[in-house]
């Protein structure tokens, strides 16, 4: 997560999926840069019991269809794991 955020350019979108969704919880919100847009895959968050009150408000929830939309819009997609 740290390496991803370090490498992203201003204005990039970041989607948290799988265990990455823990990175979208309030506990880690200080790590998030202000100049990126954040999304969280709600299926992965719900699967892990991360309700809206645990997630930071900076992350917009999306479903798999929203995940696809994000890839449609991006010039280039890079996965960090």
């Amino acid at each position, binding site marked *: 997560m740290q390496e991803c955020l370090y490498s992203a350019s201003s204005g990039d979108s970041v989607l948290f999926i799988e265990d990455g969704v823990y990175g979208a919880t309030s506990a880690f919100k200080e790590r998030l840069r202000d100049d990126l847009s954040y999304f969280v895959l709600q299926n992965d968050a719900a699967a892990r019991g991360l309700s809206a009150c645990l997630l930071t408000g900076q992350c917009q929830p999306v479903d*798999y*269809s929203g*995940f*696809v939309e994000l890839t449609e819009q991006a010039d280039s*997609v890079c*996965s960090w794991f």
Partner: protein
Amino acid sequence: MKSCNEMNYSIAIYGGPYSDQASLSALHFARALLKREHRIQRVFFYHDGVYNSSALVTPPQDEINVPTQWQTLASEHGIELVVCIAAAVRRGLLDEKEAKRYSKSSYNLAEGYTLSGLGQLIDASINCDKLITFGA
């Protein structure tokens, strides 16, 4: 003719079927792609992702069988399931031809999956509109 919104995707998977969520996430993503009327040309299995191609995977009855789901999706939508041959052979995934070449008495590559070179992943990155990777 391709509409301007419809895109040609390929997917790369690096994680094994039950040890890692990669293959399952990719499956959900693939279904969402098809629902939005995109085309999926190829799913490429690399690193531990090659374990998805085993015909012998037998999860408990109440659990999803990820390799089988890929087979079904692939045959319904004309998706190529390509398994990196170098990564597969060292991990014990063989088709009939490789089993013969290495004098093994059986093979285990599931139907619908093809062993091929890493060039197929490079090809996908060149010729598809998008290549999405699910890591491990």
